[in-house]
């Protein structure tokens, strides 16, 4: 699940570009491609559709009628607003922490050459590959061990562990493509280390930083497994969903919230995608 949200550059930082072959794919391939897309995206459309249904209990198809009533209901419920606010605050803070820590780590790793570099890189990427449940248990154990009350800050810390990796990956790929001669040219012309960072390195990694931050935000916003272990009594939006599934009343309200979540997470992902792409084309 988390792997699917990786940035649009590959490991070597090369933009993945399809060749503009003159030959058109065969009919079979095209049909198969559309079938695959439909399989992936029709369920999402169903969710959207049932946010507008007049039937509040079943998923009868077609819906007996369409209404905006459930939007009114959802907007009036304070528990939804509370969960939404909490999720936004967690995501914002986790993103901020991971932007700072992730880019500093990337800068340190790209500048230095030492023997343990390979193993450290592996350790850095590991939280992304580790199953959420393992991260969750590990964090919970650590929280218990340090006798911290789980709550807002523990959620932020938990999310930051894997959000850092997203930012780190994005920034390190960009820094690897930064020719050392640019930094040398800057120093040669009289800029000290800070000026070189400010005028040359930062502008070069800005889009990568922004893209990584947006992906991190989207990732944190809908994270549930690690959150369940670190949340204590707090209820983020995904946890609210999870609880709501067992309550049959007002079912379309969950669909309404799902639509809102989709929009909230989709915008940053689209922005991140277009940012990395335009930066790749410019270089």
């Amino acid at each position, binding site marked *: 699940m988390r792997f699917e949200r990786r940035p649009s550059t590959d490991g070597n930082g090369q933009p993945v570009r399809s060749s503009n072959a003159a030959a058109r794919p065969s009919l079979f391939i095209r049909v198969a491609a559309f079938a695959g897309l439909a399989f992936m995206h029709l369920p999402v459309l169903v969710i959207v559709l049932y946010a507008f249904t007049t039937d509040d209990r079943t998923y009868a198809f077609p819906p007996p009628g369409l209404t905006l009533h459930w939007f009114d209901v959802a907007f009036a419920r304070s528990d939804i607003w509370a969960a939404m606010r909490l999720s936004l605050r967690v995501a914002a803070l986790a993103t901020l922490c991971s932007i700072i820590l992730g880019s500093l780590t990337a800068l340190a790793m790209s500048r230095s050459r030492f023997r343990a570099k390979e193993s450290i890189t592996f350790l850095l990427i590991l939280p992304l590959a580790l199953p959420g449940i393992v991260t969750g248990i590990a964090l919970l154990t650590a929280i218990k061990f340090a006798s911290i009350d789980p709550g807002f800050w523990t959620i932020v810390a938990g999310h930051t562990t894997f959000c850092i990796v997203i930012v780190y990956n994005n920034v390190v790929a960009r820094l690897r493509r930064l020719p050392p001669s640019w930094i*040398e040219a*800057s*120093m040669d*012309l*009289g800029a000290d280390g800070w000026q070189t960072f400010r*005028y040359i390195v930062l502008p070069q990694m800005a889009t990568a930083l922004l893209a990584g931050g947006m992906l991190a935000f989207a990732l944190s916003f809908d994270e549930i497994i690690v959150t369940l272990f670190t949340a204590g009594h707090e209820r983020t939006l995904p946890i609210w969903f999870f609880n709501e599934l067992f309550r049959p009343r007002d079912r379309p309200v969950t669909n309404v919230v799902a639509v809102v979540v989709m929009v909230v997470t989709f915008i940053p992902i689209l922005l991140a995608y277009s940012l990395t792409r335009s930066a790749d084309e410019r270089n």
Partner: protein
Amino acid sequence: MTTAIEFRDVTKCYGNVRAVDGVRLQIEAGEFFAMLGPSGSGKTTCLRLIAGFEAPDSGQILLDDNAVTALPPYERDVNTVFQDYALFPHMTVLENVAYGLRVRKVSRAEQQRRALEMLALVKLDAMAPRRPHQLSGGQRQRVSLARALINQPRVLLLDEPLGALDLKLREEMQIELKNLQRRLGITFVFVTHDQGEALSMADRIAVFDRGRIEQLDTPRGLYTRPNTAFVAKFVGGANVIEGALAQRLAGGASHDAPAFAVRAENILLGDVRNSAATDVMRCEGTIVDVQYHGAASRYQVRLSSGELLTAAAPDSIHQAHWRVDSAVSLSWSRDAVMPLQAAAASNST
């Protein structure tokens, strides 16, 4: 004259490669100095040591008689034109050129004015608002030159600056660079692997081989008095004659020259039966290759003792029967002989 740059027994190793090996040299202020040598001979490393991107493992580097070995690049009065130009892609041409002033906190108006002045000097003021990727290779080269000159450095370092340009542009830029250097009076240290470029532009040339200076001399000095076999071959591609053949040709001559060089254009090609005068060295062999170059042809001749020599003859004296496999005689005047030192040459200054 004052000394702009001095190397005192400078050594720089990468792992177990001695990239620069005990180099000792002095570059005068206002000089056009070339570092010439094959790829991997340590020229770039020397430049990077001067610029401050690398620190020597041992030895000292002095700029204007001050030791700078410990100074970072931004505290040295030296600027570099990079081999790949290293222009900043997120800045306009004007911003690139003004960068050296910007980091020194010169006022915006002054930055603008002087950057435009520098761009006018390299005839690119019309390109000021463009981005580097909108320029041709030759234009980028000039922008990087203007950028490096804006701080009015005492020394300009150029690392194969013309290597990426096509032949015609390269020849134009050679003349332009030489003029610029004369006009500004700045010390130029120019790295190249192209001996023609070094000979035509430089006041003095250091020939590098495996991290050492083989010879440091004026272009004419290098060409007419190469010290070592390496220099004789690398500069102008002379024939090097050593060992038994050298002994035999030198005959009972006054000194027992261990090795000497002869330039192809000084070797006279003739038919075998021609007899020779006494002040001439002479040998015989078979033509293995003829290359026609228009005004002259180059003949590769295999001697009966196995050595391969090259003779160049103007087209006017070419004989129709000088073809591959025909026997010819080679002869040259003793004045054309350039005596060489034995293999392990010491650094000369």
